[in-house]
């Protein structure tokens, strides 16, 4: 029986159906859209069932690799343009398996959680439609084997984020945040699109298949220039989606959406996609000119620090988490920037981070649910009224801070170790610095939220089981998944997810020591500063630096005042003006000329055409003009013209 099941699972043929995992949420989305309102519980059930099924399947898929199965890929023709063929396909390897498992699991939790959180929302059903669609799009990105299909899922995620962030669109701020998110990511998508073109072009329109492109790249059949260009352009997409500097500005605003959405965006979908894209197309980066990876690393390093710093000064609990996400993603980017060395570590961090960040967001959501405010200045001392939330939150925070033996610790440790192993000390130092700051703001957040006295209004109380349940599940996961990368357990994760060839897990005492040290320092310093709550945040002591951080380095202002407004108001006005006045002026000018001529000939304007063609101006100036003189009604004058005509014609045409 069990054997049979095992046989069924270990049979690679099972992978043939991986795509179903990606399809299920799309189906459920459609079902909710059309039948949601008519089903008891108003619809989420479809999404939950779909994801549950998906989760089971993905575990099965993962099992295949746990048992050391080989990757599998298949595709069918989608359509042909000219001789250029586009395909629908799937590529399933360890990475895919891990991702689908992670996504389905977390998304499932979020769905369940949302039932409670969104209870009574006026667009309850619609919310789940988009949520399912969102998940489906992400899974599509994960499962696909070619760039165009990936692009489709990629952009659908974009619109879903738009819809979810703007879910409460009655508030102008929310809809603005939604637009900001979409436009900013879209700005990244355009380079991404061109990157796809470049790669497709590089293969001579032979294929859009990522693996094939990778192989061609590794076989050196593609010009390095094109590869480099392609890689960088693709990375542009990641920058947008994974909210890396300088396109990170949308993510904090995205907090405008309901909290589950934030969790979805930050853990399961959206931002993960950016990192995943780089990982998926890693061979392109690797075989391109090193500059490509350097750029990735550099962007990662920069973002890592600046985002972490911003997290320091936030009062909005979700904003803290948002910036922490940006900086954690930057960790992964930096790692990937290290090349093969950082690949596995980066993915591992992506994996673990998803769990504890989802956990943190949902927990934060539960807090917000209780106190009806995002601001930590209106929280405090919540550990008593809402213990479950507190403990889960604490686990998540410690993981984020990188405290052993929680997942965050292992993944971060591996990152640093990777940098160390690659002798890329600048990156290593950046990572360590980031770790300090991370530990610091995490602690600050926890202290402000759960310790001290309650500063808010009303009496906060624990959230319902439907919300805390998922918290518990995620907390458990957060504790467990770390060991997948734990060297003593031979880090199975590294056997599932690797680039080209798996690498053995090593432990460097130095690195472990360092990471524990930095985490510890951060925590202790923060604890010292925030043990007692102060009205004025201690960090304000930083002075100008503090205000710089408060203003987010003025980046938003620069973008808004320097790009958006000039285009939205000035350039557009100019375009409209030229169209109305210049171009249309020429057209009407022609009419005006004709009219003027006829006015000249006719001698005066009878207003016959008034208003019919606005360009036709009143040509009163010609009163008493030609026609008046010629068509004077005096027949002898006619005769005179007649003879003059003859004479002139005679002279002109007989003499010349």
């Amino acid at each position, binding site marked *: 029986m069990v054997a049979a099941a095992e046989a069924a699972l270990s049979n690679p043929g099972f992978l043939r159906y991986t795509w179903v995992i990606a399809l299920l949420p799309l189906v459920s989305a459609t079902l909710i859209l059309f039948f949601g309102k008519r089903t008891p519980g108003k619809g989420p059930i479809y999404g939950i069932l779909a994801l549950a099924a998906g989760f089971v399947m993905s575990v099965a898929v993962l099992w295949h690799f746990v048992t050391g199965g080989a990757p599998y890929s298949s595709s069918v023709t989608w359509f042909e343009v000219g001789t250029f063929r586009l395909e629908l396909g799937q590529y399933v390897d360890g990475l895919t398996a891990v991702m689908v498992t992670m996504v389905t699991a977390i998304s499932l939790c979020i769905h369940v959680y949302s039932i409670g959180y969104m209870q009574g929302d006026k667009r309850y059903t619609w919310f789940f439609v988009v949520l399912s669609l969102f998940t489906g799009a992400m899974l599509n990105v994960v499962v696909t084997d070619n760039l165009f299909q990936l692009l489709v899922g990629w952009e659908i995620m974009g619109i879903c984020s738009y819809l979810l962030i703007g879910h409460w669109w009655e508030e102008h701020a929310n809809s*603005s945040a939604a637009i900001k998110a979409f436009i900013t990511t879209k700005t990244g998508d*355009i380079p991404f699109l061109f990157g796809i073109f470049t790669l497709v072009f590089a293969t001579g329109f032979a294929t859009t298949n990522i693996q094939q492109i990778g192989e061609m790249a590794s076989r050196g059949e593609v010009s390095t220039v094109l590869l480099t260009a392609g890689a960088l352009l693709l990375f542009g997409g990641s920058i947008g989606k994974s909210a890396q500097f300088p396109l990170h500005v949308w993510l904090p605003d995205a907090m405008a959406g309901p909290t589950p959405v934030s969790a979805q965006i930050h853990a399961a979908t959206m931002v993960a996609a950016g990192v995943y894209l780089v990982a998926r197309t890693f061979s392109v980066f690797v075989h391109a000119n090193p500059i490509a990876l350097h750029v990735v690393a550099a962007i990662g390093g920069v973002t890592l620090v600046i985002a972490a710093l911003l997290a320091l000064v936030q009062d909005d609990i979700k904003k803290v988490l948002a910036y922490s996400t940006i900086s954690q993603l930057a960790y992964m980017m930096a790692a990937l920037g290290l090349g093969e060395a950082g690949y596995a570590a980066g993915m591992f961090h992506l994996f673990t981070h998803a769990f504890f960040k989802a956990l943190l967001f949902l927990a934060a959501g539960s807090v917000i649910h209780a106190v009806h405010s995002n601001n930590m200045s209106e929280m405090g001392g919540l550990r008593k009224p809402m213990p479950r939330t507190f403990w889960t939150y604490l686990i998540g925070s410690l993981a984020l801070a990188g405290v052993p033996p929680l997942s965050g610790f292992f993944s971060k440790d591996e990152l640093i170790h990777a940098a160390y192993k690659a002798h890329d000390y600048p990156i290593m130092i950046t990572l360590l610095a980031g770790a300090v700051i991370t530990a610091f703001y995490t602690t600050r957040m926890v202290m402000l939220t759960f310790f001290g006295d309650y500063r808010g209004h009303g009496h906060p109380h624990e959230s319902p089981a439907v919300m805390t349940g998922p918290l518990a599940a995620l907390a458990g996961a957060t504790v467990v998944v770390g060991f997948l990368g734990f060297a003593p357990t031979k880090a199975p994760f590294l056997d599932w997810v690797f680039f080209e060839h798996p690498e053995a897990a090593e432990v460097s005492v130095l690195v472990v020591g360092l990471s524990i040290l930095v985490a510890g320092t951060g925590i202790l310093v923060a604890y010292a500063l925030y043990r007692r709550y102060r009205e004025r945040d201690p960090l304000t002591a930083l002075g100008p630096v503090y205000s710089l951080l408060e203003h987010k380095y003025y980046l938003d202002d620069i973008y808004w005042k320097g790009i958006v407004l000039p285009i939205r108001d000035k350039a*557009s006005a100019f375009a409209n003006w030229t169209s109305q006045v210049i171009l249309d002026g020429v057209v009407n000018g022609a009419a005006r000329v004709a009219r003027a001529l006829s006015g000249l000939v006719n001698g005066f304007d009878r207003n016959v055409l008034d208003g019919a063609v606005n360009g036709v101006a009143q040509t009163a100036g010609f009163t008493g003009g030609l026609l008046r003189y010629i068509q004077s009604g005096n027949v002898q004058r006619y005769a005179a013209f007649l003879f003059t005509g003859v004479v002139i014609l005679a002279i002109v045409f007989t003499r010349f």
Partner: protein
Amino acid sequence: MSGWDKSAISIATFLPLVGAFVIAFMPRDRERLIRGLGILFTGAALAVAIAIAIGFDYGGSGLQFEVSARWIDVIGARYHVGVDGISLPLYLLTFVLSFLCAIYTWRFVPNPGRTKAFLALQLLLETGMAGTFIAFDLVLFFIFWELVLVPMYFLIGIWGSANREYAAIKFFLYTLFGSVFMLLGFLGMYFRSNIGGAHTFDVIQLQQFAASGGFTQGFQVVVFAAIFLGFAIKVPMWPFHTWLPDAHTEAPTVGSVLLAGVLLKMGTYGFVRIALPMLPYAAQKYAPWIGLLAAIAIVYAALACLAQKDLKRLIAFSSVGHMGFVMLAIATLTPIGIDAAIFGMVAHGIITGMLFFCVGSIYDRYHTRQIVDLGGGLMQKLPYLGGVFAFVAIASLGLPGLAGFWGEVMALLSAFSPASSLNTGLFRGYMVAGGVGTILTAGYFLWMLQRVNMGTLPDKWREAALPDVLAVEWVSWVPLLVATVALGVFPRFLFGVTNEAVTALMHLFGG
């Protein structure tokens, strides 16, 4: 060939004309009867058209349902009609849109009523539009081409809004101005053509003649300029677009739908069918400039949209941008480009037509199109209408999985690697402009949605009893909505049809 094959397209094309006459002789006061007849005839025509689409051999690249009868011997013009993969989608689109418009008219007849004339002109228009896509004789093509002018002139002039007469006459004069030069170009080709010692207006023969290098380069350059003017104004390409916003803004809903949905396509279709294959050399010489104008159009239109205060005018400008993508694709002179162009045309026809429907209905409820006056909160007041509107707007900004996407992406892709004879770098520049355009497009559509759909409802509308989407509207919209998704998910529906024909055409083009 069976009688059906001989007669099918003629029946489909002229059935509306018959309808127009029938309706013209109906008593003025029998409103319902007249509207019913309108639906009946457009429906019948659509049925025939669908039958044609079913009978169509999608494998073949040549002309099908071809008829070539003697018409005007004196000038060697023949009644030569037929459909191939390129014209079939547009041909079908014409009938679908006309039918849906007729249905829409069942409930919505714009002021000042006069249903009879309204439908009669609509049907007349339909024949003109349909004919343009099946004509394979330059003279015949020109006749159909011009046939749409008069009905559209009256549609705008009678049932338009405030400034209608100006818009109508402007539309008429401007497009006529272009087309007369086009006519000169046709005549020029006629006299330079030499098929066994005889001149010809026949499109196929001319294409072959041109492919065999019949037209000298200098001649091509001159004639292309003349023809370009005719088509470019119709498309309309920047900077010839100024008639469009006026015409659209003033025209009644149905007029706008047909104008955006089909009329504009006549211009781009003309490029694909006539300008390129008949004047290949000139096409290559002009392509960079066409591309440039297209690129400008994309960015420029998007910017202009940001400045619009009138919802309908905004959408009008947006179609300038979308046609810019189509023209860019055509300018690349590649099979992918042409495929993309046709896809873009159809997608734009469906989506923008739908957008105009929405705006029409919004106007019907609120009696204003000023974004400021609407003041947001549409989703609160009329969730379904708002939802449809949002959906279509998002489709229009090129979301993958919806029709708008493929035309755009493939256009950009073709611009990435244009025909070998063209300057790649230049076209990549255009591509980048196009990319920027897509961002701006997303920008203005989302901004529009924010200002119209989202936010809270102004008090002035709070009390007003406004009906949400009506049955008639659902009936006339659902097909378009379905098509939007279907084409987005299965682009093969369209690429599969055009591909063969386009490949053949481009092979003949040789570019």
